[in-house]
């Protein structure tokens, strides 16, 4: 139990009769980077607001470092650095004013915790007299992270922190997170970027308010036992359109330079697909089996993919 940073047991939550979270249970270990992946509306934000004590769960209990988020919400708030999905700092105050204000509010100063935030703050320093509302998306995110770190929390809760942030800023952001992890901080985050899921120690797939799977990114991908066929062609989009007509391929998606086909219960062979495409005049296709990534699992999941023999828990 000493290694557990967050423990959730059977959390449920509904808004106006609409179920947002359904019997969510998980554990996050101390010093872990734990990601919640799910499409919009999966319940990620609601879950993080419950963990940060901002809303009450309807059923179930959650503990952060052993503190119940309902009864001990003050203590939870003191050890938690929560970054909301929406930029929630003062847009009309400058970068420096924001940081100083929140430092005083948390009973500390910028210089006291400078060592912790210096990596992020260094990037912000050239803009310290700029109003927060005029920062770019990446800068805003860094400022929000600085704010969340100002009181040396033991756990960071980051809700969609990299959404709408450019690739370079995202990479810097992740470097920062890994440094914080190395310093012993627990980090829980939500994301809808699949490449970020792969950077987590463990992930949980959240879909329609339920946790579908928990495990290491690779482990999850493997455990799905997806039968993935990758199709390359010069005319990717047209190929995708055609493949969608295949009755036995429930999931067809366009990935950068190829089309991923996941075969259904009946199974598809490489020859089936090659033949199918050839008949429709696609000559230049390369068809091969491939190892599914977490994104494939996720897409399959969100399209209601079912396969016998996989872990049927929850769906």
């Amino acid at each position, binding site marked *: 139990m000493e290694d557990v940073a967050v423990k959730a047991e059977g959390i449920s939550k509904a808004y106006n009769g609409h179920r947002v979270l359904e019997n969510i249970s998980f554990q996050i270990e101390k010093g872990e980077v734990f990601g919640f992946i799910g499409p919009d509306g999966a319940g990620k934000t609601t879950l993080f*607001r419950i963990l*940060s*004590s*901002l*809303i*009450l769960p309807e059923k179930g209990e959650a503990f952060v470092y052993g503190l119940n988020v309902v009864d001990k*919400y*003050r203590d939870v*708030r*003191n050890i*938690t650095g*929560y970054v*909301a999905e*929406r*930029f*929630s*700092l*003062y*847009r*009309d*105050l400058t970068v420096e*004013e924001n940081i*100083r*204000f*929140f430092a*005083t*509010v*948390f*009973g500390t100063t910028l210089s006291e915790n400078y060592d912790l935030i210096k990596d992020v703050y260094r990037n912000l320093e050239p803009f310290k007299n700029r109003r927060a509302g005029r920062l770019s998306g990446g800068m805003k995110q860094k400022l929000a992270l600085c*704010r969340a770190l100002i009181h040396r929390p033991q756990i960071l809760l980051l809700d969609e922190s990299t959404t709408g942030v450019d690739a370079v800023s995202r990479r810097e952001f992740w470097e920062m997170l890994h440094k914080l992890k190395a310093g012993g901080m627990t980090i829980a985050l939500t994301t809808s970027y699949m490449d970020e899921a792969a950077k987590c120690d463990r992930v949980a797939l959240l879909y329609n308010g339920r946790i579908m799977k928990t495990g290491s990114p690779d482990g999850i991908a493997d455990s799905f036992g997806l039968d993935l066929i990758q199709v390359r062609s010069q005319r990717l989009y047209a190929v995708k359109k055609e493949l969608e007509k295949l009755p036995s391929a429930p999931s067809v998606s366009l990935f950068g330079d190829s089309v991923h086909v996941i075969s259904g219960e009946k199974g598809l062979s490489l020859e089936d697909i090659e033949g199918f495409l050839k008949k429709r005049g696609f000559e230049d296709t390369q068809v091969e089996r491939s190892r599914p990534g977490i994104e494939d699992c996720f897409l399959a999941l969100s399209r209601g993919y079912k396969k016998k023999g996989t872990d049927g828990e929850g769906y």
Partner: protein
Amino acid sequence: MKRFAGFVIKEFLHIFRDYRTMVILFGIPVAQILIFGFVITNEIRDVDLAVLDMSRDEETRGITERVEASGYFTIQKRLESPGEIEAVLRSGTARAVIVFGQRFAERLPGEDKAQIQIVADASDPNTATLVTNYLNAIFTSYEMELVKPSPVPHLIETQERMVYNPNMEGVYMFVPGTMAMILMLICAMMTSITIAREKETGTMETLLVSPLRPFQIIAGKITPYIVLSFINAITILLLSYFVFGLPVHGSLVLLLAQCLLYTVMALSLGILISTVSNNQVTAMMISMFTLMIPTILLSGFIYPVENMPPLLQWLSYIMPPRYFIEIIKNIMIKGTGILFVWQQTLVIAAMTVVFVGASVLNFKVRLE
């Protein structure tokens, strides 16, 4: 304490950064006091009249001259026949017509009374009433002079003396009222909006996850506005003194202390409003409808409370401005001390306690 100071500094930064807030805070009070000062008035000046004189004798000429000389009226037209009366009133050439009966001077000394008729345009009842009252006063004084030399004196002579406001100036009425209204609006509306804005922009979420307690957030929000509203109260007093010549007969310290108390009351009401509204528009609407209109209509600012139907009179008892206006009138105009207004002061103080208490209790430490 350091947290509190940090919060207050932040609030001041918000206020000074947003020029619209500054305009609302300082521009509107000045504009309102000036507008009310020059527009709301019970005095009449240069009202257009017409005269139908069917006698054309010495007395009727004397009265007509007296009316003209008063400065309140201008005689626009002399009519020839009663048939013209309707036309001048309808066209707006005159607001009222004085009609002298036939053989006016002849009838004056005798039993057969001389007759004057006032036909007033009552489509604007206030002006019509004022005009007839002023004219009556002129006629009465003329009559008094006529009968003085006669051996039979009038048995009752009314002497009017208007105490506290000898010249019946409107400024005595509107300054306390405007002050009550402006402080109420500015304080309550501004605080309710500023808290609602934190909710709207999501910064409340960040404040909530901080170790700040509800009371600290509320106190930090109120303090800057106390300072600014107090400056407003002083501005209003200075304006009414220098522009409208309204004196302060009572203790200035007591007056300012009362303003301060009223300000805190209005601010805590604003906080209470913000705890039930989730965005700035709602906060503003609630402030407008629950504060501004009742303040103007039910506090006795414009319409006397005594003339209201019983239900509205009861309602006016829960209107804080009602008490504040009484206090201000007592201190400024009558020059009385705390002994005469302690009850009203106590009512406002009690309201403040209730509002602050309700706000702290109603303040949500979570998002729902």
